[in-house]
């Protein structure tokens, strides 16, 4: 009863379980959480680092391509006499033989460089007004290109025009230009038109960025300049407006970020502004793919942590159960022994501390059992000596003298014979009671009226005090109640014999039908010396024991006594 009123968390089992789970779960969560944070950050940094190195590589290729454009313009002009020929073209009148010869030599030189190097699709020379005087693409001669930056800027110095859409060629082109002529005054502009195919190839070149990784160029007006992996983005009608492209194109910045890509999917991107070409170099990889391996690893870590936690809880529960169960079994056994089942012993199945405890417990109960048995034997021996043997001695004395008494006075002989019969019955009753004490189980098997009658006879046999036993035969309480009532009656009669000096005692058992229940009322009364209840401490006279027994069956014990007024003990039990 007491144990079950404790809060759940107070039992050893629950406390252990709580500590165990807290320990394991906290550790698992902490490890998993820290791993996720660190690994995510590392993975992102690693991806950015990878993209940066790719971007750097591509940027170097772009730079060297631009360098190649410049170098090749220089190569065109490196030939002896070419500058003089170009001067002739700008000065001589159309149709002049001198001009035609110069034109042929220049065209030859242009064509030779263009085909040998393969970098320029078209090499052209523009006069001081921007008119095309020589071009490897003859159809472009006489074009007026003075409006273009590559002319106006090219008159002043080396220039690379940003990639732009050529209407006549129907493709993206880059024009490199430089002035011709030394000494301040430029004769005109030498320009080379390169298409973006080679840059396109550079950008499209695989760089170990997985399925979604790619690099591409974006112009200063956000126009897409090189092809994308995703279909549906055609040049020159595709524009790239992502936060990465915005930062590079509008802010001329270089950096990295995670943002929605041109197709809407989240990408990790590295962007770099290439000022020589006025383009943004974008290197991007889909976030999902870039972090796939890491995310898988993290999910695995999480799953393992969860599994470990579950496993720990299961193992912990089993372990705790294996510790607590034998303990509670031991406790139960101890409780049952306390309740009288002295023959019980705890099960010892283990060799650990609990096994040892159970073993010690069994040795202790064994020892206690021996002790109790020897005390009981001593008590029986004493009782036999005190009661039965004295009675038997009286019987044998009486039996010895009886023939002679009977001869002298048959009436007195008859009376002695009657006394002899009473003594014999008393001895018999006492013997039965002692036997009952030797075999407690028999108590429960004998009916309460029989038990009470035996008690009465035993007292008569032992103490020669007349005991009037009045029994309502219909009364039949449960065995536990019957035993308790018997013990109370026994204790009360013991008091009568030992202390009351009474001339008469009465034991009454009757049904108490109050409230409609089949209750029982037991009364033991005597006409002896009585006592002052206030003077007697509850431990004395076995009163405490009687009260405990009454309480154990939920019965009410009343005690009425006063000096020279006799004593009444009444027990009322109702189911």
């Amino acid at each position, binding site marked *: 009863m007491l144990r079950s009123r404790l809060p759940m968390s107070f039992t050893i089992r629950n406390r252990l379980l709580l500590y165990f789970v807290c320990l394991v779960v906290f550790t698992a969560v902490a490890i998993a959480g820290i791993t996720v944070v660190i690994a995510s950050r590392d993975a992102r940094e690693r991806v950015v680092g990878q993209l940066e190195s790719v971007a750097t590589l591509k940027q170097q290729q772009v730079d060297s391509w631009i360098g190649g454009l410049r170098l090749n313009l220089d190569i065109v002009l490196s030939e002896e006499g070419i500058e003089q020929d170009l001067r002739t073209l700008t000065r001589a009148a159309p149709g002049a033989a001198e001009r035609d010869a110069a034109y042929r030599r220049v065209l030859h030189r242009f064509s030779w460089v263009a085909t040998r190097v393969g970098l320029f699709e078209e090499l052209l020379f523009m006069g001081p007004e921007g008119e095309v005087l020589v071009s490897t693409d*003859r*159809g*472009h*001669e*006489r*074009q*007026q*290109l*003075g*409006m*273009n*930056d590559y002319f106006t800027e090219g008159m002043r110095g080396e220039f690379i*025009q*940003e990639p*732009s*859409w050529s*209407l*006549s060629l129907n493709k993206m082109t880059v024009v490199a230009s430089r002035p011709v002529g030394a000494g301040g005054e430029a004769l005109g502009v030498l320009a080379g038109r390169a298409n973006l195919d080679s840059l396109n190839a550079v950008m499209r070149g695989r760089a170990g960025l997985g399925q979604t990784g790619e690099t591409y160029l974006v112009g200063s*007006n*956000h*126009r897409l300049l090189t092809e994308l992996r995703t279909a549906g983005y055609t040049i*020159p*009608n595709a*524009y790239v*407006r992502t936060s990465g492209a915005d930062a590079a194109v509008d802010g001329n910045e270089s950096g990295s970020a995670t943002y929605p890509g041109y197709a809407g999917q989240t990408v990790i991107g590295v962007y770099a502004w290439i000022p020589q070409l006025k383009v943004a170099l974008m290197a991007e990889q889909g976030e999902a793919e870039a972090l796939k391996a890491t995310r898988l690893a993290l999910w695995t870590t999480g799953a393992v942590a969860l599994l470990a936690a579950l496993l720990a809880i299961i193992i912990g529960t089993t372990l705790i159960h294996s510790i607590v169960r034998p303990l509670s079994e031991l406790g139960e056994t101890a409780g049952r022994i306390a309740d009288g089942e002295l023959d019980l012993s705890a099960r010892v199945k283990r060799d650990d501390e609990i096994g040892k405890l159970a073993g010690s417990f069994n040795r202790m109960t064994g020892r206690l059992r021996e002790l109790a048995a020897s005390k009981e034997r001593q008590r029986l021996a004493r009782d036999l000596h005190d009661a039965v043997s004295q009675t038997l001695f009286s019987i044998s004395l009486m039996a010895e003298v009886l023939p002679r008494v009977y001869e002298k006075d048959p009436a007195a002989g008859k009376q002695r014979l009657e006394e002899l019969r009473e003594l014999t019955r008393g001895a018999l009753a006492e013997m039965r009671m002692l036997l009952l004490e030797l075999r407690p189980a028999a108590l429960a098997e004998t009916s309460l009226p029989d038990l009470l009658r035996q008690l009465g006879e035993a007292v008569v046999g032992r103490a020669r005090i007349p005991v009037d036993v009045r029994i309502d035969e219909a009364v039949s309480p449960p065995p536990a109640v019957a035993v308790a009532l018997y013990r109370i009656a026994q204790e009360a009669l013991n008091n009568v014999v030992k202390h009351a000096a009474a001339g008469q005692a009465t034991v009454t058992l009757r049904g108490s039908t109050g409230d409609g229940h089949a209750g029982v009322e037991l009364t033991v009364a005597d006409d002896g010396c009585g006592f002052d209840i206030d003077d007697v401490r509850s431990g004395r006279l076995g009163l405490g024991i009687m009260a405990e027994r009454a309480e154990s069956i939920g019965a009410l014990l009343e005690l009425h006594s006063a000096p020279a007024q006799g004593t009444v003990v009444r027990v009322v039990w109702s189911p």
Partner: protein
Amino acid sequence: MSLVSRSLLAALAVVLVLAPAAVLAACGNDSASPSPAASPDKVTLQLNWFHEAEFVGYYVAAAKGFYGARDLDVTILEGGPGEPAIDSVLDGRADFAISSFGEQRNAVAEDLPTVALMSAFQIPPLVIFSLAESGIASPADLAGKRVGVTTDYWKDVLDETLQAAGVKPSRVTAIPVEAGDLEPLYDGTVDAWLGYAQDEPIRAEVEGHRVRNVFPADYGVGGYEGLLLADRQTVEGAPELVRRFVQASQQGWRYAVEHPDEAARILLDWAPEPGLEFQELAVRAVAPLVDAPQAVIGWIDAERWRLLMADDFDPANPGFTTLFSAAAP
């Protein structure tokens, strides 16, 4: 609940309802836009031709709400042959009008008070086109060929281009043709045709012919095109209104160029006749002429303008301003 906390809650509710509106208003546009509570300014734009891809930026600005966001309610009026749009701003029928460079040049020469605010086209959309298999890739290739011309204007463009490319115009036969029917080109009656990049070549393509364009612009012929004009009185009297209109229009053009297919669908609402395929190709043809390497969208370069105006250039009355462009410094 006490009266005080009740009124506090009411105040909170009012703030919660009004705050987003206030934020939106604050973010909508810079100082230029007045409070949205006032009714929008009504503005009329007179086009100089039938609805077509040449004006797609304005339709997009209207459809995407760029005008509305700047508190403008814009009416776009269709033009047509024989009625110069430029007149409508001069006599006050419209606030803004589209004109060709030639018209504005003449107007400036006549001291008329029209001011160009932006140029939709950085490269004029004039083309000499031929069937791809003809192999005509430059004006020089036209020597000895027959070229279909619909009007004197196109004859002038042809001759100017030939001359710039060093080809004697007499070596090319100009054949008068009807504007609506490209059959003479298909059946070989003529070898080439002059027209607008967003019109005749697209029609040929839709009708199943691959064509090749030669741009007279490459030979210095033509300059700015699709000018947005206003009367000087409007420009000086309502500069904020002009700024809002110009910038919203430039935003429309930028959007159209970057989203050609969406722009084509918007254009289709105004000009459904040619069909979606035609309009998609037309917008794609216009885009590279509008967003060209020379400058940001809508910009007019002073030096280029001066060169194009040639003898008619008057520094005191240049006939254009970029003050209202988004890219203005």
